[in-house]
């Protein structure tokens, strides 16, 4: 019998099949440039029911077909996108949170679609439009949703404990202390440092800019006076036990809502959607009011989240892709589908006033959308830097459960500042100041 080399033969066969399979796989984007031929664009998004929305577009646009893949949310998806970018393997279209846009742009992963969609500018509040232009003349995406912060409170509990709806932070603090003293089993709410996005939004309201650019260098303002004001405020509340200090987004945190342990929630206008699952039994008990202000009579809010849809630099058909985005995020048909199927609160001004916004069933508030639009318009502008992910990740490391004093909050904040500056420098950025 010959020396059989079945193993080697198998290995060769495997390699050969791999190459063949590779040739027939769809790894690289189509190379056609003509806009009259049918193109298929890949699209990653985490919006619920996006497939249904895409189906509507596909039915009426046979020449521009969208192939949708459901993406995991947030930073997992961003990490995957960044890795795909290195391999030039990104989808044509992707949903990107506002705070991640600078990261994508600084890696040169987003296409400039200003020549296609710049005219949409008039339909968006300035603060939101700035998020997708990054203050330049380029356009890196079309805003999809807005997430202004507001105060959500339990009408029944406020009535029971004789609380007025706080309009200033000072009032919020007094009422929180009073509430917990009257009934130690209840808190006004949870502290604001359980979620980096929430805290960032609140510091924006106070006037802080975590990142800003001047000339050719960045500066980091995580430790600025305005941010310190917010940190010291919440640190004080925690230290005096006026608010709780629990990790957010866990089962026991959900329970704090459903059991009535928390009388209010500082959250964004997407809160009712979350409360439906967190505390279904409290349906009808919540109301929304403006976020407490630092000075009486002010009208400023911050934002917690929100995303845009962008065209990546790997796309061979930016024009068609930009067309789809404009339809999705700004057209009447697209936005009403987003609202009804995707449970999105739209950023577009016309969509915000539209009559097709679904009635709020969880909250008993007839002026919900009027108020939401107001808050969206009054959101302070935010500039994000190229390493938001690091900042958010370090945030949770610095604001741990053991940090429960005002001094602790302030020192966590300055630790965060130092970490973010160090990270930017080590990645090669020029950071001015501390």
């Amino acid at each position: 019998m010959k020396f059989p080399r079945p193993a080697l033969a198998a290995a060769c066969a495997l390699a050969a099949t791999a190459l063949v399979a590779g040739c027939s796989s769809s790894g690289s984007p189509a190379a056609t440039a003509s806009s009259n031929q049918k193109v298929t664009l890949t699209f990653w998004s985490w919006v619920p029911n996006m497939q249904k929305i895409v189906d509507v577009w596909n039915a009426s646009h046979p020449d521009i077909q969208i192939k949708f893949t459901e993406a995991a949310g947030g930073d997992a998806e961003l990490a995957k996108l960044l890795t795909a970018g290195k391999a030039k393997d990104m989808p044509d279209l992707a949903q990107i949170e506002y705070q991640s846009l600078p990261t994508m742009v600084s890696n040169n992963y987003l296409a400039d679609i200003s020549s296609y969609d710049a005219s949409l500018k008039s339909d968006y509040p300035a603060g939101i439009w700035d998020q997708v232009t990054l203050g330049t003349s380029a356009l890196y995406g079309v805003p999809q949703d807005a997430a202004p912060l507001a105060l959500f409170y339990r009408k029944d509990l406020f009535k029971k404990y004789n609380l007025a709806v706080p309009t200033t932070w000072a009032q919020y603090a007094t009422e929180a202390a009073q509430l917990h003293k009257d009934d130690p089993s209840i808190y006004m709410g949870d502290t604001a440092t359980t979620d980096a996005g929430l805290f960032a939004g609140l510091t924006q309201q106070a006037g802080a800019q975590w990142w800003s650019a001047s000339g050719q260098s960045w500066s980091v303002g995580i430790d600025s006076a305005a941010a310190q004001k917010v940190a010291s405020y919440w640190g004080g509340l925690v230290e005096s036990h006026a608010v709780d200090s629990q990790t957010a987004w866990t089962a026991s945190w959900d329970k704090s809502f459903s059991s009535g342990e928390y009388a209010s929630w500082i959250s964004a206008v997407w809160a009712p959607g979350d409360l439906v699952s967190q505390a279904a039994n409290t349906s009808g008990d919540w109301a929304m009011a403006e976020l407490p202000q630092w000075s009486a009579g002010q009208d400023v809010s911050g934002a917690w989240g929100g995303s845009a849809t962008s065209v990546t630099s790997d796309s061979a058909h930016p024009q068609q892709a930009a067309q789809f985005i404009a339809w999705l995020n700004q057209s009447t048909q697209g936005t009403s589908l987003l609202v009804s199927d995707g449970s999105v609160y739209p950023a577009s001004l016309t969509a915000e006033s539209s009559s097709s916004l679904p009635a709020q069933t969880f909250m008993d508030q007839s002026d919900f959308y009027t108020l939401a639009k107001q808050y969206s318009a009054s959101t302070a502008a935010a500039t994000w830097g190229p390493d938001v992910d690091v900042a958010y990740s370090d945030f949770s490391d610095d604001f741990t459960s053991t940090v429960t004093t005002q001094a602790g909050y302030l020192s966590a904040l300055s630790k965060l500042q130092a970490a973010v500056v160090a990270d930017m420098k080590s990645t090669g950025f020029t950071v001015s100041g501390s």
Partner: protein
Amino acid sequence: MTTAPSLHTHDAAAPLTGARRVRPNGRGQRWNPSPRRMPYSFIAPAVVLFVVVFLVPLGYTVYLSTQKTQVEGLGLGANARKQVAAGFSNYTYVFHDGEFWQSVLRAVVYGCILIPIMLGLATAFALILDAQHVRFQRLGRLAIFLPYAVPTLIGSIIWGMMYLPAFSPINSVLHAVFGIQGINFFGSHIVYLSVANIGVWGGTGFNMMVLYTSLRSLPQETYEAARLDGANERQISLRIKLPMIRPAMIMTGIFSTIATLQVFNEPYAIHEISNGGVSTTWTPLMTIYKDTYTANNVYLGAAESIVIALLMFVLSIVVLRATNRQIFGGEAR
């Protein structure tokens, strides 16, 4: 491992030295008694795959670790970022990074807790499964192995929920029965035990199976003699079986140690709900993950990976040298 007792029924084969005989078949093949090329054929598929799947990417990682990003100006815009050579600067950064070495220390502490417990349990269960007069062995084998089949993500989520302060069934039982306040499973020292518990739960079953398989391949006659001499099961297990599976235990220990120093899944899965008890850089692998994916600094991540790999390489070589003979005793020499 062990030298197998003489089981063959015919005499020892004719000496294999040099004699070449023609095999009586129609093709007139030569029979080479000392086949030189055959072992290479046997190990070829593994080696080829290994080169493709490990070595090439590893080489690429080494290359990446010598690069860094150069940013022009603000870094926004078409050509603002470039990959440039960085020599050993990434490595210098790693050696000076206190946080990184703290994560190494934490992994070592974690390992010192996890390994003895997990291997002790694995050995105990393996012996129990192989012993006589023990009931429920089939159930035990399946049940204890099963956690290994549960994805670490799910297992960690489940245990994480059992650790949540207000929610924990463990704490409510403790409160009801003993009146204790409740353990803070994410407290700065207890958190090691909490994370180790997830590792023990998930990993004992597999190690148990490896040791059990070794036990099953031991010849049963040895026990016969001992039983006739009046030894009970416990003595047989501890005095006879245990020493005979020592090589397997050592091997399992080494691999568990390597796997443990690479711990990532369990702490990562619970770090968000741990209220800071588990930080994002709690273990070296988490640090690497954070730098590679979150901070998008693939170059620093690559350097950190190489450093960790080297550490483990040194550790393994040292231990393997010491135990080589005991593990591979049953082989052609």
